[in-house]
């Protein structure tokens, strides 16, 4: 600051207050200039990319709505960086429903604009962080369709996967009796409510037994004293319980997290898309190499490949005494070859015609070897000449 003051013509720069930049996570006094700094721009792009990936997850659920189980609620939270609030899915039946509604809201849009105005030099990525109303409407329709389809099984699942062990066996037994479930689902789980009928039945039994309690305890069925006789006898064998050391229902692998599946499918989608070719695409003959590799694979598989190597094929070569492109050098060479062939043919024809005439044939024969062997003739002769000298 003082240095700037000493320079005669420059105005003293404003002293800005220290402000905290959410993106760079530090305090600075650069003022509004800060958002144009390259470091800030880099951090901003990283910051926005991170949030974009979170929104991509939410968008996945926008396209594929699935039910949200209570134990997964805590995993389904999103922190919206623009609104500075945590979106928790409390009591929502579908995954990311609150998040989707939030991202579609006008308040969120306003906050995005404010954020980008303050932190980002460019405002063009606003739409990346918004969810349009049309998409939301589609999602709602999908959800209702899904909801209608799986009404009973959905609720059965929900209630089964609740962490109440007492209720587990009851649900397995009475899964199809929806009239038990609906009122209870609405009112939150009341554990012993499910055992009502049982309880009432066995309660009378207990009282009945109770009178005989002192008489013969061995006559009582196991576990009945003062309690309902659960269906533990038949369900305990199949799925186990705490006493048998079976895993709790929320950790059973078959149920599986929605998120794991989505991750797996996304990873599986990505793998074939990424072509891991580390070779420089700009290397010499890259296109030819790729084509050749494909041809060789086809040959390996035994498919018929059009053999492009005919007798006249010549590689890409830049000749010594030619200037211009390599195609030119190849063309020139082929021209020379044709000339020589023509010359050789013409000579052979002439020699055939003049065979009978001695003098001329002699002269022609003497010329023949020189002309028919073109390549060695001049340069090699010169070279041999220089060596001899």
């Amino acid at each position, binding site marked *: 600051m003082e240095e700037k003051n000493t320079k005669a013509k420059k105005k003293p720069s404003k002293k800005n207050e220290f402000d905290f930049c959410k993106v760079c996570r530090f305090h600075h006094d650069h003022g509004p200039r800060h958002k144009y700094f390259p470091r800030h721009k880099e951090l901003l792009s990283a910051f926005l990319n991170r949030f974009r990936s979170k929104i991509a997850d939410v968008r996945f659920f926008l396209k594929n709505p699935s039910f949200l189980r209570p134990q997964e609620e805590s995993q389904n939270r999103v922190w919206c960086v623009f609104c500075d609030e945590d979106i928790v899915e409390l009591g929502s039946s579908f995954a990311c429903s609150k998040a989707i509604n939030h991202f579609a809201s006008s308040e969120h849009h306003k906050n995005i604009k404010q954020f980008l105005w303050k932190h980002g030099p460019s405002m063009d990525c606003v739409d990346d962080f918004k969810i349009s109303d049309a998409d939301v409407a589609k999602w709602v329709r999908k959800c209702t369709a899904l909801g209608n389809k799986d009404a009973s099984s959905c609720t059965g699942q929900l209630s089964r996967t609740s962490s109440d062990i007492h209720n587990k066996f009851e649900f397995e037994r009475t899964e199809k009796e929806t009239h038990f479930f609906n009122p209870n689902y609405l009112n939150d789980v009341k554990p012993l409510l499910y055992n009502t009928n049982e309880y009432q039945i066995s309660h009378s039994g207990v009282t009945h037994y109770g009178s005989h309690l002192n008489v013969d305890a061995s006559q009582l069925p196991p576990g009945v004293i003062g309690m309902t006789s659960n269906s533990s006898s038949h369900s305990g064998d199949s799925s186990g319980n705490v006493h048998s050391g079976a895993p709790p229902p929320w950790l059973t692998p078959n149920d599986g997290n929605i998120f794991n599946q989505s991750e797996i499918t996304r990873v599986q989608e990505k793998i074939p898309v990424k072509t891991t070719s580390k*070779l*420089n695409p*700009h*290397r*010499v*003959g*890259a296109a*030819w*190499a790729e084509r*050749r*590799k494909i041809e*060789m694979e086809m040959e390996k598989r035994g498919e018929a490949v059009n053999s492009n*190597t005919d*007798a006249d*094929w*010549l*590689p*890409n*070569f*830049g*000749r*010594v*005494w030619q200037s211009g492109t*390599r195609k030119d050098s190849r063309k020139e*060479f082929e021209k020379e*070859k044709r000339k020589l062939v023509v010359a050789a043919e013409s000579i052979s024809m002439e020699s055939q015609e003049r065979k009978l005439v001695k003098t001329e044939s002699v002269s022609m024969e003497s010329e023949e070897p020189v002309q028919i062997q073109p*390549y060695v003739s*001049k*340069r*090699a002769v*010169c*070279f041999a000449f*220089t060596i001899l000298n």
Partner: protein
Amino acid sequence: KKSSSRFHSVWGLYILKRQIRNHREKMESVLLPTLTKKEEIDRIINNTIDKVLVLRFGRISDENCLLLDDILEKSARDVSKFATVALVDVDSDQVQVYVNYFDITLFPSTVFFFNAHHMKLDSGTADHTKWVGKFHEKQDFIDVVEVIFRGAMKGKLIVHCPLPPERIPKYQLLYKDV
């Protein structure tokens, strides 16, 4: 002590000779392919993908050619990951097309290819399209092939020779009657 040291030196020499013999046998058992037909040359050019192809044009009656072949054989394995080496017998008739096309007038000549494209080497001589003569030692050859490979991977069709001028064989190139 003297006798024992002499014994050790003799024994050491014997071991060394045996090693050399074994090495040579090993090397000779994996000879470089000698090509005598145009189809063979075409095939090897077309089948060498993403590797430098070194084609030596020469005749085994030539002393320089033999020295060059020796160096090629010994370093073929070292460069095998990024180069293939082959010998072309220049006396064969079917190969004359290539001798013509590549303007080979001096033997031995070595031509370099990468992905069926000819790689040029500027070694300060008149002819950039090939390497004429022998190499001074194995490392020189390996350096040249490496430089060609690096240049080719970057997309360059001509590369600069890394060898100092005293190691580069000099020759006179004559154009037709000049």
